[in-house]
């Protein structure tokens, strides 16, 4: 069991992410290891801690965690899955794109919004192809417009 540093524990418990953002800026290896360990925690462990670990790891920017986050996707509830899509978009590997594209036709509009934003951040040819599909085929005017905007900026 990886020990959670005190400052990180407080940041994970907080109602805002600002303290977590500060720890991400500091980039302490012990915090990274602890955040990764939270991805491996079972469902019974506090869901907010896992969701916040996903948030922080996405902003940490180390693509080594892409596989772990992608593997979690099917078992996450809706809100956590959006956090994971957001994080994958910030990590930006081909494996991340494949995980994100798995939710490109999700019935939830907010999910598809974060899919479009994540693909736009990554901007690789595969991500752009996914955005093109959203631009052409998504049932929502908003998502089609968002995808078009992301394509224009990528």
């Amino acid at each position, binding site marked *: 069991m990886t020990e959670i540093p005190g400052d990180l524990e*407080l*940041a994970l*418990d*907080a*109602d*805002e*992410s*600002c*303290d*977590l*953002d*500060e720890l991400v800026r500091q980039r302490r290896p012990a915090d990274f290891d602890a955040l990764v360990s939270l991805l491996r925690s079972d469902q019974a462990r506090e*869901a*907010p801690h896992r*969701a*916040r670990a*996903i*948030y922080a790891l*996405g*902003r940490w920017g180390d693509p080594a965690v892409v596989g772990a986050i992608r593997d979690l996707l099917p078992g996450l*509830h*809706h*809100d956590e899955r*959006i*956090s994971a899509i*957001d*994080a994958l978009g910030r990590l930006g590997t081909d494996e991340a794109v494949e995980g994100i594209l798995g939710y490109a036709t999700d019935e939830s*509009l*907010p999910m598809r*919004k*974060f899919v479009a*934003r994540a693909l736009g951040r990554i901007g690789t040819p595969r991500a752009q192809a996914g955005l093109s599909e959203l631009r052409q085929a998504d049932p929502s005017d*908003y998502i089609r417009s*968002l995808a078009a905007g992301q394509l224009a900026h990528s």
Partner: protein
Amino acid sequence: MTTINVRTAVADRLGKSGTVSLKKDVFGVYSDDHPQSRSLLTQMDLILNKPLVRVAQVTVIGGDIVTPTPRPQRDLDNANTIYQRECGAWIYCTGNITVDRIDLTFLDQDDCNLGASHSVSDDEADLFGLGRDLGANIVGYYIWSSPGHGGCAAHPPGRRGFWLEFGSIKPGSPQVAFAHELTHNVGHNHHVKKPADNLMTTKKGKTLSSTLTDEQCQRILADPDMEYP
């Protein structure tokens, strides 16, 4: 015996004229989620004699998101209890609207850095444009969620405000989360670790008994949006 002209006081101090609603214009109550007896005499004392900060509230809804609902009046009442008890100031709600914007129910946000280092996302730019015609410089937004979760008082330059989520992941201190975020705005108060019962700690379970220090109150009372009689 002193006679108080409510209409005059409300016009002079709060800027409300024409047809005046006792509930909305005098008490600043726009939601029915926290019913309680409210004393007109006490309210007039606040209006006539105490510093106030104006706040508006915006709830963002959309799609299938119907429950749970936020409790904006409870949040205002609790924030008022703490501000009046700790600092002798009060919070006047100038309006509360609900906006159907499913695209903003889940907020895309890069970070929650308080201050100039905050990166303003497109969603934040949109969200913090809502409710700017409600008569307050500070607006509290209720959204379903954001990857950052909980709440955040980081805001675009010139658009003071904060958001709170009311979705599946609840704040650790739901009773005073509004007061906490508001206090990041009013007086630019940051998190503290001591005293343990302070409103601005990050620990879970903060309650109406949460305190503010003299220093925090001084910053609140010196805020540019604090109005004096």
